[in-house]
């Protein structure tokens, strides 16, 4: 047996340790992206989540104009942080519909009174059915839906100030 061959197992082991060590330094990606991006919004028709806004149905997203679909809840803390950015998006001309996950009408109303109401419509998803059907894995999440009812983009987590121009761009892209 030639001498260099003796080192092969050790080198393989060192390579494995190196790879494991490198992967440990990389942050864990906990986001589960929806595979529904690029696909048609599944059929749904949700009752209103609060008194002063109508409910949401999948048909509402076929108006020809792209819209944002925001998945939120009154019990969700990052949704509070996000409220101001949604307000900014609405001011910039974005039309936003909301889906409140597992929420009571009085809680939704109190949340909107306190943190603002940028929504045109708000549907109530009491059993997370629509959330599961569109591949959303938590609150808050925001989907860009083009004017033909197709999911164009998914934003996971709360919208920060730096995401506002990006989302407006995605809306414009979806409309072109």
């Amino acid at each position, binding site marked *: 047996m030639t001498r260099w061959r003796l080192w092969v197992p050790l080198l393989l082991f060192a390579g494995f340790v190196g790879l494991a060590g490198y992967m440990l330094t990389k942050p864990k990606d906990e986001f*589960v992206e*929806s*595979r529904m991006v690029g696909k048609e919004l599944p059929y749904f028709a949700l009752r209103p989540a609060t008194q002063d806004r109508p409910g949401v149905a999948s048909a509402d997203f076929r108006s020809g104009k792209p819209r944002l679909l925001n998945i939120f809840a009154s019990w969700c803390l990052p949704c509070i942080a996000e409220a101001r950015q949604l307000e900014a998006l609405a001011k910039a001309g974005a039309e936003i519909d909301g889906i409140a*996950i597992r929420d*009571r009408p009085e809680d939704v109303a109190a949340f909107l009174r306190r943190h603002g109401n940028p929504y045109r419509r708000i549907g109530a998803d009491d059993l*997370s059915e629509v959330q*599961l059907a569109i591949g959303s894995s*938590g609150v808050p999440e925001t989907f860009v839906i083009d004017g033909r009812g197709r999911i164009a983009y998914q934003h996971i987590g709360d919208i920060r100030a730096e995401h506002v121009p990006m989302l407006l761009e995605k809306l414009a892209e979806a409309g072109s």
Partner: protein
Amino acid sequence: MTTVRTQFRHSRESGNPANKGAREALRAYWIPAFAGMTMFWCAFGIPLAAQDTMPPAPYAYRQLADPALEAKARALMETLRCLKCQSQSIADSDAPMAGDMRSQVRIRIAAGEEPEAIRDWLRERYGDYVSYRPQVGAATWPLFAGPLVLLLVAGAAMWRRFERRR
């Protein structure tokens, strides 16, 4: 921490209640314990507050009346990943979303849907990630082929050695 504890027990056993060392040890034990508890509640108390107040979905905690169907649903639930608590199956998790998923699984099984059809429906939405059942695919085939290749290589190496020795 261990040293403090043994010290504490030791002075108690020595039978001297007025022992100053014991009182000090008690303080040394309780202050970190209290700080630890506070940290625990800061870390876990806030996410706990971020829970909804809605009742659980109809079949989140209720079994199906038919034991055969319930067993079918149960087997599927144990191999579906909870999306909010990603190291648990939806059968193990108390997250409201996992409850909603269990309820949906049970209702669909009761309506006659096949477990694998429900799994495929979820995989269409969340990818392979949502399923715990190992699957041979474009990205996973080396995991299945690797051991076979290793066995073959090892077998060939052994065969060559034994041949040479003869």
